[in-house]
């Protein structure tokens, strides 16, 4: 009896181990029954709006040829990078993944992504905005292809402008004007604000938005050198503090906590008259703000005659290190970043895309306010910069941001704070 039990257990264990091996093998073959090569594609686009669009692009690609079958897998935003990394480490990654444009160099340096220099030439490169292309090049080698991007614009409520006697076709163009307009647009009932004209840290912005704007579009790094403690950046933070002090902590916090819930956007609800956000913000206005007459403008400049610099970001399509089919993966990436797929993505999502022709085609298809705003979004890219994380300072944001928090809380002056930040970041150099 005992003997048979022990044999049974050993048998079960061996079966378990064997079946584990065999199932691994069959899934790694990477070919369909009719001989097509399977390209696994990972993205974080799982929302109601985005998923059908990316899946239509995948379907179009699959139907356009008979050698490759792209399989799209949606992974939640919070999981996708960790999962990618784990699969790269395990040697069985996806073949194409959508990843952050600002950290391409990091991944190249750490060998998490395949080099694709051999698949791209000058003509290919010319399809894309050059500042986006720069971000996918690390030490003269190419590691990804830009997919989409974004830029900040000033959205303003035309009705509110008319109400207080401002010309709705003359949005503020400098920081000084922005402040003047904002004060006019404030609406107070006793001590509480019913409407706030503008607050520079609401919307898709942060202190860095204003510091880079003031500093001629340069971020914390300028030509490979740290540029955290600069006179213009100090001035920008001082200016931000003025806003905070004028409105008062309580007002700012109260407003902020209310729209933390994202149930209703305060700009759309008419509680804030001017609002900085990315271009796609317009879709929210379109869907939820039927009565809102909205205008857009570039980010006001630090002083008359200075650039209207805006912060950008975006995503690239890349091949994780160790992909079994890099050549086929690249075929798909070329389709994904080609003008046809890009204009489709741009139009449907109202998103800035990296392919210049794709962006222009989308703008030509749109009509009315959508066209006007999309054109502004595309034009804004001329004065948009992205700020890739420097390879030497992978963790610099985490060091700088709390210090900026402390500056904004009034615990340390902008001058002292930025000086301290620069010193601390210098210590981090790898």
């Amino acid at each position, binding site marked *: 009896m005992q003997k048979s039990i*022990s044999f049974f*257990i050993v048998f079960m264990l061996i079966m378990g181990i064997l079946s584990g091996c065999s199932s691994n093998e069959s899934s790694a073959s990477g070919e369909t029954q009719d001989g097509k090569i399977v390209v696994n594609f990972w993205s974080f686009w799982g929302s109601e709006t985005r998923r059908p669009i990316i899946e239509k692009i995948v379907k179009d690609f699959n139907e356009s040829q008979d050698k490759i079958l792209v399989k799209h897998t949606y992974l939640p935003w919070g999981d996708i990078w960790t999962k990618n990394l784990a699969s790269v480490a395990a040697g069985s990654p996806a073949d194409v993944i959508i990843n952050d444009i600002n950290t391409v160099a990091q991944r190249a340096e*750490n060998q998490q992504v395949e080099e694709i220099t051999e698949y791209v030439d000058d003509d290919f490169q010319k399809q894309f905005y050059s500042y986006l292309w720069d971000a996918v090049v690390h030490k003269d080698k190419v590691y990804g292809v830009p997919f989409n991007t974004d830029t900040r614009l000033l959205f303003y409520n035309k009705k509110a402008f008319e109400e207080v006697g401002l010309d709705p076709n003359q949005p503020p163009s400098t920081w000084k004007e922005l402040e003047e307009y904002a004060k006019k647009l404030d609406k107070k009932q006793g001590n509480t604000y019913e409407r706030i004209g503008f607050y520079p840290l609401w919307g898709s912005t942060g202190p860095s938005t204003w510091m880079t704007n003031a500093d001629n579009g340069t971020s914390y790094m300028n030509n490979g050198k740290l540029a955290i403690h600069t006179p213009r950046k100090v001035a920008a933070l001082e200016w931000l503090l003025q806003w905070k002090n004028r409105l008062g902590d309580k007002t700012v916090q*109260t407003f902020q906590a209310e729209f933390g819930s994202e149930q209703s956007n305060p700009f759309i609800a008419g509680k804030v008259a001017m609002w900085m956000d990315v271009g796609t913000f317009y879709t929210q206005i379109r869907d939820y703000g039927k009565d809102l007459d909205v205008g857009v403008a570039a980010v006001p400049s630090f002083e008359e005659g200075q650039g209207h610099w805006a912060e950008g970001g975006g995503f690239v399509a890349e091949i994780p*290190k160790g992909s079994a089919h890099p050549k086929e993966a690249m075929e798909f990436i070329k389709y994904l970043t080609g003008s046809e797929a890009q204009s489709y993505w741009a139009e449907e999502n109202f998103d800035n895309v990296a392919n210049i022709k794709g962006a222009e085609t989308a703008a030509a298809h749109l009509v009315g306010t959508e066209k006007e705003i999309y054109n502004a979004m595309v034009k804004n890219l001329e004065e948009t910069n992205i700020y890739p994380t420097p390879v030497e300072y992978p963790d610099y944001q985490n060091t700088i941001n709390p210090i900026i928090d402390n500056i904004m809380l009034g615990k340390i002056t902008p001058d002292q704070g930025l000086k301290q930040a620069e010193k601390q970041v210098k210590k981090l150099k790898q």
Partner: protein
Amino acid sequence: MGKIEMSISKDLKSVKKKRHIKTGKRTRAGKNNLIGYLFISPWIIGFIGLMLGPMLFSLYASFTDYNITSKMNFIGLANYKHMFTVDDMFWTSLWNTLYYVLFSVPITTVGALLLAVLLNQKVKGMKIFRTIFYLPAVLSGVAVYFLWMQLLSPSTGMINTMLSWVGIEGPAWLFDPQWTKPALILMKMWSVGGGMLLYLASLQGVSKNVYEAAEIDGANIFHKFFHITLPMISPVIFFDLVTSTIGSFQIFQEAYVMSESGNGGPANSLLFYNLHMWNNAFKTFDMGYASGMAWILFVIIMILTVFQLKISKRWVHYEGGNDK
């Protein structure tokens, strides 16, 4: 508890010895052992493969610049040196965590105990109250944090609204670095139901005879509580203290969910140890450094637990005498 385990293992040892002598055959005993090991093999394989292995690996990784994909060069104590001398956020995160442990553990333990004593009274409909107070322990995770983010909203949140009824102007909670940690501790208070259930069970296990004897001797309610109830349930209090200390040191989710994009809240006031570790591991992919941090936390928790075990001999009462 400890005593029972000890005695069982003693019994087992003696049984084994006896059997060995009796049969005198090595093979028979060996076979029995083999079967025994086979039965516990899922656990052994799990422990070695999923616990001990990765732990030893992370210990080694902490002496390297391991970045998951390409590097794993031995760099000696550099990670630990960086931690203690360069990384200011290491100290911030350690301080935030200690602050949280120091307040949340005593408050929740006392809270759970008091609640359990109250719910141990013989009142009609007590079962309903017990269910109500235990309910928050059933609800957990991200949904609860979102609920609390709304409750703690400075202007429209229920907590500040209620405070304003009694004329108190509530703080900005999660937006003010001074108040973020107290806000979290307050939130933890809400879910004392789990600890309460433990205490309630042990309270019901305290023999009525002891109370009766004390009453005859003229003990009042406080005497009974401090001289009978507390000592009798002290093993459970001890268990709760140790586990909730360990749990509190590992606080992560709350800060990750409740601070904007998991960055550790305003001015890093919610940057807890594990959050900083997580950021190092999965944002900058400095896995070697993160492994080092994990081991430092392990050492801290180990020291505290050993300390608690030592000090427990002075106040934890085991029925039937302390087993040494």
